[in-house]
C-alpha cells in the first residue's frame, strides 16, 4: 500500500501538487494512513488546541474539547455547538431570492427563477467565510448535509476509541 510524506500531502491539500503526481495518487491504491496524516496537518494549521475528530469541509471540523464535549468548529475558532445538531442553525444566513440579488452572481437568464429556487448563503459569524450555499425552494427546511456516525467510524473502522 502506498504512503505519502507530509510535504506531499500538504501540497496536495493546498492544490499545489503537480497534476501528474495527483493523477498517480488517484490511480493508485489508497494510502490507509491518510486520515491520520491529514488530520495532523489540519490540526497544525488551526489556531486552537481542541482535537480534530473529523474534517467536515474546507473550514469546518468536529472537534473534541477538554471538557469532553464535541462541537462543530470553524478554523477561525467559532463554535457552532454540539456536533450532532446542524451547524447551519448557528450560522449567519443571506438569502438570494430576487433577480437583482441573483444577478450579482449570475448574468441575466443564467440563474434560477428565484420563486422556485433561492440561494441560501451560510456564513461563519466570526470570520464571515461562506461555508455552504444551498439551492432550495422557498420553505425547504435547512438541510443537514452530513451526519457522521462518529462512534462507529472510530471504533469499528479505525479500530480505536473515539477521543
Amino acid at each position, binding site marked *: 500500500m502506498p504512503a505519502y510524506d507530509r510535504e506531499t500531502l500538504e501540497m496536495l491539500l493546498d492544490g499545489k501538487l503537480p497534476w501528474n503526481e495527483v493523477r498517480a495518487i488517484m490511480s493508485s491504491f489508497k494510502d490507509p494512513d*491518510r486520515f491520520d496524516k491529514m488530520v495532523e496537518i489540519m490540526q497544525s494549521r488551526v489556531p486552537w488546541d481542541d482535537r480534530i475528530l473529523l474534517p*467536515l469541509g474546507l473550514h469546518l471540523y468536529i472537534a473534541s474539547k477538554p471538557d469532553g464535549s464535541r462541537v462543530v468548529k470553524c478554523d477561525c475558532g467559532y463554535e457552532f455547538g454540539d456536533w450532532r445538531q446542524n451547524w447551519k442553525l448557528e450560522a449567519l444566513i443571506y438569502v438570494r431570492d430576487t433577480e437583482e440579488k441573483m444577478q450579482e452572481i449570475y448574468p441575466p437568464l443564467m440563474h434560477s427563477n428565484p420563486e*422556485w429556487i433561492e440561494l441560501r448563503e451560510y456564513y461563519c459569524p466570526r470570520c464571515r467565510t461562506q*461555508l*455552504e450555499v444551498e439551492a432550495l425552494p422557498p420553505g425547504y427546511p435547512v438541510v443537514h448535509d*452530513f451526519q*457522521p456516525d462518529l462512534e*462507529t467510524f472510530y471504533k469499528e473502522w479505525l479500530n480505536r476509541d473515539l477521543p
Partner: protein
Amino acid sequence: MSEYLPKQCGETLRDHKPIGWDGRTLKEMLEESERLLAETGCYWGLKTLPLKTNEPIRYEKIFAKLRGGLVNARETAMNISASPIVSEIGELCFAFYTPEGDSVALSTGIIVHVHTMSDAIKFMVRNDYEFNPRIRPGDIFSNNIPKIGDVHNSDVQTFVPIFWEDELVGWAGGVTHVTDIGASTPGNVPVGPISSYEDGLALTANKIGENDIVFRDHEIRCEQGVRTPMFWKLDERTRIAGCHMIRDAVERIIREEGIDTFKQFIREAIEEGRRTFIQRIRETTVPGRYFCPTFVDLLFKGEKGLPDYAAVDTLSHAPLELTIGPKGEFHISFDGASKWGYHSFNCPPSAMQGAIWVLLTQTVIPNDKVNDGAYLATTHEFPPFTLANPVVKEAATGAAWGFLIPAFTGLVRALSRAFFARGYVEEVLSSYGMTMNAMQGGGKDQYGRDTGILNFEVSCQGVGARAIADGADYCAAMWNPEGNMGDAEVWELLIPFIYLGRCVKPNSAGMGKYRGGSGYASLYAVWKTPDLVMQNCGDGSVFPSPGIFGGYPSASGYRHNVLNTDLLQRFARKEPYPCREDDPADSEISRLVKGDHLFDCRTLNYPYRMNHGDIYYSIYRGGGGLGDPLERDPALIEDDLNGGFILPRYAESVCGAEVRRDESGLWRVDSAETAKRREEMREERARRAVPVRDWLVSERERVLAGRMVKEVRVMYNQSMDLSARWGRWFREFWRLPDDFRFSEADDLPPGESGA
C-alpha cells in the same frame, strides 16, 4: 421490472429439457441464487473463493481474457455503426452475464448498463422465456423498455445466449444509444410523449432472431417504426456482431480453461466484486447519513396540443439520501420524491440503477472489475408512484435522463463529503454539469431524408470543481466519462445546421475558491432543410448542479433562438453576423440578427418549426463550484478573464477582484486591492446576513401562510402525500400541525396518486 407486465407462464411448453446448470431451469437458478445471498450474505453462498485463492494468476488471466474480449468486441463493433452517436461519441457497451442474469464483466463505454441489461435478462428468466419463446443456441433477443430493464427507450439492447453443450453458460449483452426511437416527437430523448403509448418502438425483451439471423418481420417493423432506419439497422448489426464476438471469446476461454473452472470463475468474480465494493466503502468513506436534495423543472405550461393536466409547469423534488452503515452497507433512498407525471421524465428503478452505476464506477470503484457484485452490496429505496419509480404502466420513460441527471448530483456531493472527511481530497468533486441543452428535433435533413436529431455535443460538459483545483472544462458527461463533443464538420453532415460559432460560455461554471468546469455554447444556422421542427431540453428555472463547501451552483440555461431572421440577407450583403453570445445582457445575437427572438428561460419546449436561415443557440452547462469565491487565487481569476471563462463584472462582484487591462490588453488582478475589497465584502456579508435562528422564525410564518408560488406548494404536497417520513420531517422542522398540508390538492394532475 417484471411486475409492470403480465406474467407469461407458457405451461404447455414445459416438456423441454431445462437449460440451466445441473438440470435446473433458469428460474430455479435465479431463485436459488437469491436465497443463498439472503441466507449467507454471499453470492451463491460463496464464503470462500477457492479459485482466486489457490490459483490467483489463473483467475486473473481468465478475467483479463473475458474483459479483453468485451473491450475488443466494443472497439471492433462500433466501426460497423454509421450513427455518430455510436461511432464518434462511443455510446455503446458490451457485457457478459451469468445464466440467471448477473453481470460478470463489462467493456468500456456507457457503463450505465452494468445492471440494466441484468434486469432485462432476469425479466426473461422470471417470465419463463426458457419454455416460451424458448432460449436456444443462435437466438437473438432485444429490449428497450426501462420498466423491464433499461435507462431510456433509446438505449436498445441485444442479447445472445451462450451455450456449452446443452447448458446455458451465460449471455452476451450489447447496448447502443440509437438516433431515433420513433416516439411521438423526434429525437432519441423524446420530450413529447405524455404516456408510454407515445414512447415509440417497444421491444419488450423480444426474440428477434434465430440461428444468428435476424427475423425479417422484426427488421420491417423497425424500419417502419423509426425515423432513421439506416442508422437503426447498422446499430443493430453493431450490437449483434459484438455479442457474437463475445460468444467466440467465451467459448475460447471454456476450451482453454474447462467448463467447470469457467463456472466457478464467474461466480467468484461476482462475489469478489461484492466484497471489493464494501471494502472500498470502508476504506474511503465515513459511515453516516448524507442528505443532498436537488430539484428538476418541467416546463410545459402553455404547450398547445397537450391536455390540461400535462400542460403544466412542475417543480420536482429529488431528495437523495445516502446512508453508509457500520459494515459498509450502502443505501440510497429517494423517499419524498415527487409524483410521477404526464411527461417522459419518469424513471423506473432500472433507470435509477443505471445512474447509480455510472456514478459509482467514476467515484468509488473506478477500475475494470465492475460487475453485479457491487450491485448486490447496495440497497435502494425508490418509493412507488414517484418519479423514481412510476409503477404505473402508462408512465412515459423516453426522457428518463431528464430526471435522473439532476437527481443524482446529490450522490457526487454526498460521496465528496465522505472523501473529504477521510482525507482523500483528490477525489472530491462538486456537482457535475447537466448534460443539457439536449438539442432535439427532426423532419427532413439537407438531403431531403427523414431525420431525428440529438446533437451529442451534450456529452461534453463542465465537471464539478475539485477540492484541490478547478473542475475540468467541457470534457465529459455524467453518463459517459469518455465524453467527446464531436467534430463540427461531422455534425454539419448529419444535421441540417451549419455552425456560426462554438466557444466557451462565460459564467456557465459555478464560482468558488475553485470554480466548476466551464460549459460552452454552439450557435447554428438552420440550413437547407425543407421541413424541420426543433426543441430545447434543459433546466432554466432551477440550479440542478449545486456547489459544495461554499461554492455556488453552476448557471442555469436559457433559450435564444431566432425565427424568420435576416441572416441570409446579411450573408448576401456581407454584413457581420453573430458567432457567440458571451453576455446575455449585451447579446451579440440580438445586435446582429433581426427576427423573432425566443430569448427567455423556457428551456424545455415541444417542437416548433424552424426554417432555412433561422438561428438556434445551444448552451452546454458547467459544473458546480467549491469553496468561498473570496478565497479564489487572483492568478486563477486572471486566467478566467483572459480565457473568457467569466465576465469581468463577476470577477468583481463574486470574487472581490479588482481587475484592469494592461497595455497588452490582458486582464490583471491587483492582489493588494483585491485583499482590501474582500475584507470589505466580508463586512458587507455581516451587515446583510441574519442569524439563521431569527430567519427561521419568519420563514415558519411564511410556510404556515403558504407564501410561495403554486408550483412549490404542489411539490411539497406531493412529497408529504407520498412519504409519511418526509412529511413528518417537514412538519417537525417547521413545527407545523400534524395534518398540515398546503391547499393545492385540487391542482394535482389526475391518475393514481398512491397516497
